[in-house]
């Protein structure tokens, strides 16, 4: 499995109009072989160890830390209220407090979660077969766009920020991926992508992907 992995992450495109408004906005993606199955004991143990990092007081103060603060600010600047639509790292922290621990679900989701907890940078996974070889990027939706690759996907209002490739829209920015585009039981290769905003150093974004790939056991 190791020989298939190219750890050089690729920079995704950002529509010039969006880039002009948000010079710090970037998407980085990488393709790795991975299957969706139960996590090995090492990953489950790592999640358990990471659960201990969170206490009520630290979660309350989280929003004053640089990385969460950068995402919260960006959420406000794109019309989302981070107190209503939580940023990914805060969402994970709240789930941890509610459940008492980070629960393992499957290897891919666990690896995404580990990358998020370790760096504060959110990562998503797509079935590589659904991604155009030209790569991913961020753009605004246009008339006729719909979520996912089938025409039955939800129609998107023009002007929405989306993660897309040349063929289809995979997700609204910072939202869950379109149904059928995530990793499934038959997935053999996935595309991981992370989104960085102004105030998040580039090294954190690459670190997030690297941690995720490492957890997948592909590194």
């Amino acid at each position: 499995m190791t020989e298939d992995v190219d750890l050089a992450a690729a920079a995704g495109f950002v529509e010039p109009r969006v880039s002009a408004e948000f010079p710090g906005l970037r998407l980085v993606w990488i393709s790795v072989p991975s299957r969706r199955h139960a996590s090995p004991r090492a990953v489950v143990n790592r999640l358990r160890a990471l659960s201990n990092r969170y206490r009520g007081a630290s979660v309350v103060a989280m929003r004053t830390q640089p990385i969460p603060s950068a995402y919260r600010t960006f959420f406000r600047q794109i019309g989302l209220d981070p107190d209503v639509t939580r940023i990914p790292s805060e969402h994970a922290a709240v789930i941890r407090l509610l459940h008492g621990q980070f629960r393992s679900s499957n290897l891919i989701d666990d690896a995404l979660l580990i990358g998020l907890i370790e760096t504060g940078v959110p990562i998503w996974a797509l079935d590589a077969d659904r991604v155009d070889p030209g790569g991913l990027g961020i753009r605004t939706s246009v008339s006729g766009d719909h979520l996912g690759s089938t025409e039955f996907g939800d129609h998107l209002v023009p002007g929405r920020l989306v993660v897309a490739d040349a063929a289809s829209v995979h997700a609204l920015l910072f939202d869950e991926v379109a149904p059928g585009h995530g990793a499934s039981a038959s997935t053999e290769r996935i595309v991981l992508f992370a989104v960085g905003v102004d105030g998040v150093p580039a090294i954190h974004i690459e670190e997030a992907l690297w941690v995720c790939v490492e957890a997948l056991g592909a590194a």
Partner: protein
Amino acid sequence: MRLLDQESSAQQVQLPSPVTVTEDAQRAARHTLRRQIAGLERQLAEAFVTAYTMGGLEHPPAYSAQPRLLDLGELEQVRDALAERLRGARLRIAERADEQAASRLHLERMLLEPGKYRFARVSREDLGEPGCGAWHVRPRLGLIGMLMGWWQVKLSSGCPLPRGRGLPRP
């Protein structure tokens, strides 16, 4: 005449078109608003942490929204709403701080002259302190103390155990 000649022979300087100027100005204005939003968000985050031990801040009403590029008017609305929330948060913190100061003063008076504050009670929460303890003015030796005017301040032992006191020993 000479002046006219000079004018006609002067080099033509291309001025930026009004459209470009407007677009650049609007982009600059949006940039400024985003910077203001970033500053307000940081201050609101700090206010949230400060207010947390004081009972917290009001949660904003839930609404459905999707990520998009905001125009000038929308950015102004976001900034104004944030500024209003920050003002409310600071007001709440100030009010709560005043209440805590008053509770602290009340506790000091209770400790100095418990007889004047019979059965008065000040909790740790009233003082902005963590824990479940409370200072309570009670009569020493129960009814006798009440009749004799022997009053004292007792600090309760703290939070109740999560499982109670457990089963009595056989």
